[in-house]
């Protein structure tokens, strides 16, 4: 655990001293602010459902860019050789990068809490769906960070890493749209793999263990594969 703490400190330092995170967080909050103002004036209702859907889409677009450096940069700069020859397990290296990525993404999400506060001050929003939406976002963000880490461990080219990560996230998003083309049981498999299919119920206030299990399982699978690929060299 002490190795994890040392690695996490280094990752947090690298993450929060790089301008990329701040630029993307600013873009994220700017787009959200614009959408929030627009939907509030247009609908005049105290709900954040559009904002949460926008955060879902923005995360799919921005998290691959945030995570593309994770291993790709270490590989390019040859520093990965330093980490992998130190007396630490690969799983700690992966977990440290995962937690640092998560800290940045959750920091971005935390900026959106101000919209919920504004609604709370000037309206009477239904808080249940807002809480469950934040849970959905946190799980969604964790899965995207894990996927970004996995693709970053495969290449030293950051653009390739981001493109792979974005491609995988989009495939998961639209998995259910090809279900009608597939024979059983692959059709139900495609439906159950759908990212939006597990995100949408939570945004409307319905929290199912199966939806939470989907995000947690896929994120753990991605982290497991990242660790395996690092260990097999």
């Amino acid at each position, binding site marked *: 655990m*002490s*190795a994890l703490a*040392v*690695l996490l400190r*280094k990752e947090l*330092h*690298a993450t929060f*001293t*790089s301008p990329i995170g701040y630029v993307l967080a600013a873009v994220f909050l700017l787009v959200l602010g614009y959408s929030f103002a627009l939907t509030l004036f247009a609908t005049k209702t105290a709900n954040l459902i559009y904002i949460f859907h926008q955060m879902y889409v923005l995360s799919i677009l921005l998290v691959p860019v945030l995570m593309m450096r994770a291993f790709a940069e270490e590989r390019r*700069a*040859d*520093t990965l*050789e*330093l*980490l*992998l*020859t*130190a*007396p*630490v*397990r690969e799983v700690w290296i992966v977990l440290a990068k995962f937690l640092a990525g998560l800290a940045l993404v959750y920091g971005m999400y935390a900026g959106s809490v101000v919209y919920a506060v504004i609604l709370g001050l000037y309206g009477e929003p239904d808080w249940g769906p807002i809480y469950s939406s934040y849970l959905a976002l946190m799980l969604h963000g964790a899965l995207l960070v894990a996927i970004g880490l996995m693709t970053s461990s495969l290449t030293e080219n950051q653009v390739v890493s981001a493109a792979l990560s974005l491609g995988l996230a989009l495939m998961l998003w639209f998995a259910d749209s090809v279900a009608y083309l597939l024979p059983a049981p692959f059709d139900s498999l495609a439906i159950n793999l759908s990212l939006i299919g597990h995100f949408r119920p939570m945004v409307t206030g319905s929290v199912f263990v199966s939806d939470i299990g989907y995000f947690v399982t896929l994120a753990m699978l991605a982290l497991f594969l990242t660790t395996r690929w690092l260990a097999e*060299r």
Partner: protein
Amino acid sequence: MSEDIKGHSLPPAGEDQPAVVAEALTKRYGPVTALQDLSLEIRRGEVFGLLGPNGSGKTTFIRMLAGYLAPTRGRLTVSGLDTVRDALPARRRLGYVPEAAPIYGHMRVHEFLTFMGRLRGIAPADVGRAVDRVVERLALGDVLRKPTRALSRGYRQRVAIAQALIHEPEVVVLDEPTNGLDPRQIIEVRELVRALGGTHTVIMSSHILTEVARTADRVAILLGGRLLGVRSVADTPDLEDWFLSLT
């Protein structure tokens, strides 16, 4: 400094036990054989040179020794510890400087050395002293607060060597340590390697014969992934002739 890292006490290494033993070591990358049936023993406290042209298998051997690569076949031990089965204890006994001398550009020199010291298992209370020791040994005092990305090639190499020495390893492995250095820096690194011999086992690779001849106690010649021979430098007055006769 104690070698007791995170409560894991390392088994004492016997005086007669070789520092490194390779037995029929083979590494293949798909159809390409980078190293074929390499067997050798490296004694404690000696400076051992690996000599050979680019692509001869020196870096592959060194990377297997450092635990970065796993052998396809055969066995490699550091102080009796298998580099695959006992990977973490074996790595604790080893300090490694890769050929590119990689360091984190976003850190200052003291931050980088502290990070590497902690990563190699030095307790928080001891890491400051360990950093001071290597800073003095490598004469890094002038650049201690500088960002590592602003360092000259010579200083980068010194910082990379300092991180390999910070936990007082038994075996120090240097991959092409004089690559890209100017003549003065080459002399400094050579003197440092000589000074390390005796207190540490030093394994260095080079494709420059005179470099190995001036630094190493014994030298192994590799070509095409095969070990062609091992000789004591002192007992081989004409190393150049021996090298030419083998290659």
